[in-house]
């Protein structure tokens, strides 16, 4: 039984990354109607930004948590302004292909310069060590990841669902022309939203840097799973993607305990089941 608690907790930690990433995807899909396949590459860029901030600029992990999402977010906004905005109103497929291409290019460039095994990033001194919970040894850093990403996820949900700014955003997706008539700069808001979604990916990248290697393909390995999470949760549903992210982390964790060989496929089996029963995803509404 003790081992089970430990696996649940470990699942929750991985779920934090799924939640943060799928949240960014959901925000971008919900507001811009773009299936952002570049998300994994942007997550990877977040981790690399943290690495360079530390090793070139001597800037600590804590500042990287703030700066890396801003840097990568700006990169994302440039992408949106120079390329993605021309896809408004077109079929989803175009956005998917474009962002997939961008992801391949970005990953290829990083791989060319940094190889595939990656670079080490140390856990910040304040979060080193761990505590004995009785049923497991919990590294403090992992605990921090769960708490921090929960706060960020709920904060984002609150921003979009409960604030005035969020209301403008949602209105702008429903009827951009009308919202513009009220004097609101819709294109700028869209750009900022894409920046926010990208920033969330970069933030997850910074969080994961001390746990995993900072590798050019770290995002490519994760993005497919995250897309499955989004599909299960319902495309574009903010709360849905947060809850599914955490839940699937836990389910995957349990699989690693009971039948480890299947741990990298269980998410997709679930996706198939959900799509069979409820094609719009668990929390999605029919279009």
């Amino acid at each position: 039984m003790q081992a089970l608690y430990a696996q649940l907790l470990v699942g929750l930690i991985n779920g934090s990354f799924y939640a943060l990433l799928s949240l960014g995807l959901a925000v971008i899909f919900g507001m811009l109607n773009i299936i952002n396949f570049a998300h994994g590459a942007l997550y990877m860029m977040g981790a690399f930004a943290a690495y360079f901030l530390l090793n070139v600029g001597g800037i600590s992990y804590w500042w990287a948590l703030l700066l890396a999402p801003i840097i990568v977010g700006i990169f994302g906004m440039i992408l949106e302004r120079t390329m993605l905005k021309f896809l408004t109103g077109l079929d989803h497929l175009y956005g998917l292909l474009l962002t997939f291409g961008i992801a391949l290019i970005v990953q290829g460039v990083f791989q060319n310069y940094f190889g595939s095994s990656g670079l080490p990033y140390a856990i910040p001194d304040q979060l080193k060590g761990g505590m004995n919970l009785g049923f497991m040894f919990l590294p403090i850093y992992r605990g921090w990841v769960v708490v921090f990403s929960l706060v960020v996820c709920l904060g984002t949900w609150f921003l979009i669902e409960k604030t005035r700014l969020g209301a403008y955003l949602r209105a702008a997706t429903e009827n951009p022309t009308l919202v513009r008539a009220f004097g609101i700069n819709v294109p700028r808001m869209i750009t900022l939203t894409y920046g926010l979604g990208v920033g969330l990916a970069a933030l997850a990248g910074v969080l994961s840097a001390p746990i995993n290697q900072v590798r050019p393909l770290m995002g490519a390995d994760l993005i497919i799973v995250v897309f499955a999470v989004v599909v299960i949760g319902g495309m574009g549903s903010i709360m849905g993607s947060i809850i599914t992210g955490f839940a699937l982390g836990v389910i995957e964790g349990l699989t690693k305990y009971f039948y480890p060989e299947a741990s990298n496929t269980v998410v997709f089996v679930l996706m198939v089941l959900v799509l069979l029963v409820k094609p719009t995803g668990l929390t999605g509404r029919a279009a």
Partner: protein
Amino acid sequence: MKKSIASLLLGTALAVTTAGAAFAQDKAVKIGALSDQSGLYADLGGPGSTLAAQMAVEDSGLGAKGWKIDIISGDHQNKPDIGTAIARQWFDVDKVDIIVDVPNSGVALAVNNVVKEKNGVYINSGAATSDLTNAQCSPNTVHWTYDTYMLAHTTGQALVKAGGDTWFFLTADYAFGAALERDTTAVVTANGGKVVGGVKHPLNTPDFSSFLLQAQASKAKIIGLANAGGDTTNTIKQAAEFGIGKGGQKLAALLLFLTDVKAIGLETAQGLNFTETFYWDMNDKTRAFSKRFSEKMKNGAMPTMVQAGVYAGVRHYLKALEALGGNPHDGVKVVEKMKSMPTEDDLFGKGEIQPNGRTIHNAYLFEVKKPSESKGPWDFYKLVGTVPGDQAFTPLSESKCALLKK
């Protein structure tokens, strides 16, 4: 299918058109470097292996003697079906004579069959499974550098003898992990130890915490890592995070490469014991080669033992061709010639190729240096011991290779 082609044409060969057409054809060789070019094994083999093959061709000096040697490279993406498809195309369409490198035991065994069927030459450096020179040995195959038997009988044996008598395995769930676990288990039990459990994890797993918790709960003294590349680096990093070393359990990195140590960082990797058959900083000759190699690598990386094995293997292959006086385009014949000549090169020293295709050379036990002991960006290892080749690799009396039963 992605196929990046890096071909090298020896310019000097172009000038030699005076020889008759039939004669010139005899001196044409095509080498295919098949590897994981972008995944978790790309740094330990990949583009570096292609470079090593090119350097071997240049250093052989055969270009000046009228040989025309081309190198092409391919990406098997760690998938046996893609690997065999490329191999078939190379033999059938591109008229490749020899395939080198091929890390990933699953792909390596699949390609082994294709090379045998097409009567090519196969010098495997990147794959670990000892089956290549054992149950699945082939008259067309030479296995250079290392194998799972060697890893088990060096690192594994040393740990059991030092008191690590209970083991828990974290095993990559494919041919390589299975072979390494099998060979190490044999050593552990033969030395009076016991395997108390294990987990098979999918290849290329980003998070090992769940598996590490199971290893921790097993209370085994040694956690044996029967995985490689990115999987090993992630396991070691995360084991440190979960305080596994502090709890009295010891990690056995059965297979660790130079690029893995670079990726983990000395802070976390220090003190790890493992075995390799080549390290760049062994003597003047290895240093000279590695310096040339590193200058040509985009990220300035030093060669791994896999890349060194590709270099040494191609050098020996070309020596055999030269001794034959031309390229007979007959794999079995060339490999027989290779086996009849003792091996000697700057990187592995003197050695031999056994009748089952296994190359025998020294193996070295290393320990990862402390950060304070490291003097440069690639100064990672200190030598702890040397195991002579005949003790490190499968004795012929134990080999199940059918070629030995003649």
